């Protein structure tokens, strides 16, 4: 592992809570690592577990999914589905030999800009400790 290794993180954020929370972090000028890139989805329930695997396959070293706090989902129960599905995925990842530190789930509301920073720092730190991901044959798909 090279000393200056910087993990590459892909994050899926729900439009209503976490994406708004990340926007608030920006408006409040909260500084956090630039390793994280955000893909906006309407609801964390939209995140197909395969997206997480796909991201790891396509060059990400860590993946984060963040949604509204349980009970606060803009679509009533989407984050519960996300919690179930992705919780299972995390177990599966461990089972197939992927370091579970590469995958995080969090609940960040629209008012939690500072919490967002903590979540990002933790995700990046864990992915850094886990090192560059070489578990899958990396494959770039040309869309």
């Amino acid at each position, binding site marked *: 592992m090279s000393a200056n290794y910087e993990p*590459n993180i*892909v994050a899926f954020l729900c*439009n*209503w*809570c976490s*994406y*708004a929370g*990340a*926007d608030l*972090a*920006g*408006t409040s*000028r*909260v*500084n*956090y690592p*630039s390793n994280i*890139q*955000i*893909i*906006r*989805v*309407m*609801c964390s*329930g*939209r*995140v*197909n*577990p395969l*997206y997480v695997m*796909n*991201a790891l*396959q*396509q*060059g*990400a070293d860590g993946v984060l999914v963040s949604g509204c706090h349980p*009970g*606060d*989902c*803009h*679509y*009533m*129960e*989407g984050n519960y*589905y*996300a919690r179930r*599905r992705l919780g299972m995925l995390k177990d599966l990842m461990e089972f197939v030999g992927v370091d579970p530190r590469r995958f995080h789930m969090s609940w960040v*509301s*629209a*008012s*939690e800009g500072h919490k967002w920073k903590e979540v990002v720092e933790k995700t990046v730190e864990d992915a850094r400790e886990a090192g560059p991901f070489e578990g899958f044959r990396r494959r*770039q*798909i*040309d*869309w």
Partner: protein
Amino acid sequence: MTEKPKVGVYVCHCGINISSTVDVDAVAEFAQKLPDVKVARTYSYMCSDPGQVLIKKDIEEEGLNRIVVASCSPRMHEPTFRKAIAEAGVNPYFLEMANIREQCSWVHEEIEEGTAKAKKLVSASIAKVRLLEALETKEVEAEPAALVIGAGIAGIQAALDIADAGFQVYLVEKTPSVGGRMAQLDKTFPTLDCSACILTPKMVDAANHPNIELLSYSEVEEVNGFIGNFDVRVRKKARYVDFDKCTGCGDCASECRVKDRIPSEFDQGMGKRSAIYLPFPQAVPAKYTIDAGHCLYLTRGKCGKTPKCQEVCGAGAINFEQEDEFVEFKVGAVIVATGFDPFDASRKPEYGYDDYPNVITGMEMERLVSASGPTGGKIKIFNGEEEIEPKEVALIKCVGSRDSSVGNEYCSRVCCMYVAKQAHLIRDKLPDANIRIYYMDVRAFGKGFEEFYDRVRRENVRYIRGNPSEIFKRGNKLVVKAEDTLNSRPLEDEVDLVVLGVGLEPRADMRGVMDLLRLSQSPDRFFLEAHPKLRPVDTATDGVFLAGCAQGPKDIPDTVAQAKAAAASAMIPLARGKVTINAQVAVVNEATCRGCAYCVNICPYTAIEMVTVNRFGNEVEVARVNEALCKGCGSCSAACLSDSIQPKSFRDSQILPQIAALGVMR
């Protein structure tokens, strides 16, 4: 795909907001080389008129059919750019925004990392925009009616404005009477007009307005649907009094067996009421209500031989068999005007509110000085031996506000002025009393506030800078321990009465309304508006608006102004008669759907149903989406075993290329 994508990429400087941490020219240069990109430009303010004209011109001259704007959050300006490209003849959904401000330039410091990240975000947006599809916006009719939750001054004002414009309003109030907190106040600052005199006519107007259906002693149980078409279910709690028969004479209350034994909520527990009661004499509607938690008959099943109230009611209005009723109706917009809770002074134990009866809150002081209050407006206290008029009075500001030890960092905005007003009222009634106000700062920011503060100071009221650290008892006096920070002198002032200028807090029961309407809280825990400056009365839920202290502490003029703003905003869909519905809905590929119906069970809006279709000569069951009900969350899609159901604009085929673009370390 019918035509080959021709992408235009527009990178915004946003003044120096973006360009100070992102090399925008390098980003544009990088974007220019990506597949299908025809034009890549930068401009100082893309959202400004010249910025939009730049895009429109390129669409016309270069034949662009996909647009990427790399600027601020799509939550901010997506509607702006959608509108702009639609005006140039491109489908508004052929737009993708790369958020290089809130999620890049504002949160990173080094220009190298900012630029590198911006490049990746832009490439992800280009990857997605090439595969977007044209969507059609649909319109549905809007119900020309509004629901207003909470009938304090905010709710009453909003309801009156909407009703005056000719729309039906359902005004729902939890307690037996409208009026809210303002009804409890004595005088209002800075003009000193009496609160009841300006409020009660509005209360009566709201109750008698032909377009307002007042549902008092009621709670909203369910709100379903979307802007223009909310289905509402309200529980009308049993009053155990026939609403139509009750004449409001009050004979029942004066005969009640627990008369004068139940603390009156309206008088902050300082006055007493019966189990059957009118909250206050000017209550609207003037109908009595039996408090089921205290009525002997309802709690123990027995009240003498027959309940007294039933005996004396000439109208025969008492009905112990009454049950909760439900009303259902449809509205196009909802206004949340649920108000606040005063800060619970017990949470500052150093001030001894729980221990010493002569430490009272500002709300209690309002009732004490009010002519309609429990003492008839006389400021009297019991000093352990006898009832006396206090000679030494201390008022303390910022109790529960600007205090992170109780979790409230915000300023409650009204305490400076109501404490000054109460000092004035005390001076009025007790000309010889010594009045001291302990303060951190004086914030007299409103119209006429500074002048009023000046006037109060001239009335021999001492302002002492320094919040007390402790209040304790010495003999039958209270000792206020503080430091006068202007003179650097420790103080131990002996006083008879302490008034705590308690702040405003979000309502303890706000969770119910939050869940009903899918609202969020801001960091101060009040309801969160859609944008702090440009959409201060809107919420993230379309068609739901905020008014008054539910959104944050404010005084009466600000509350009324916001109520009028919320009413005007709520009337937009009502007056238009139509609303556009979300075009980004899920759609089923009926050729691949295997008919398992997993999606049907998952959909929180019951928007998916199973239908029988003919597939190559076979009758098969497939899922179908009702576009009017679908909100486009996409939970169905993540569960679909054959990837057949997909939310438009967030299809697998549109998200996976984004992942690919972000995955590669360039």
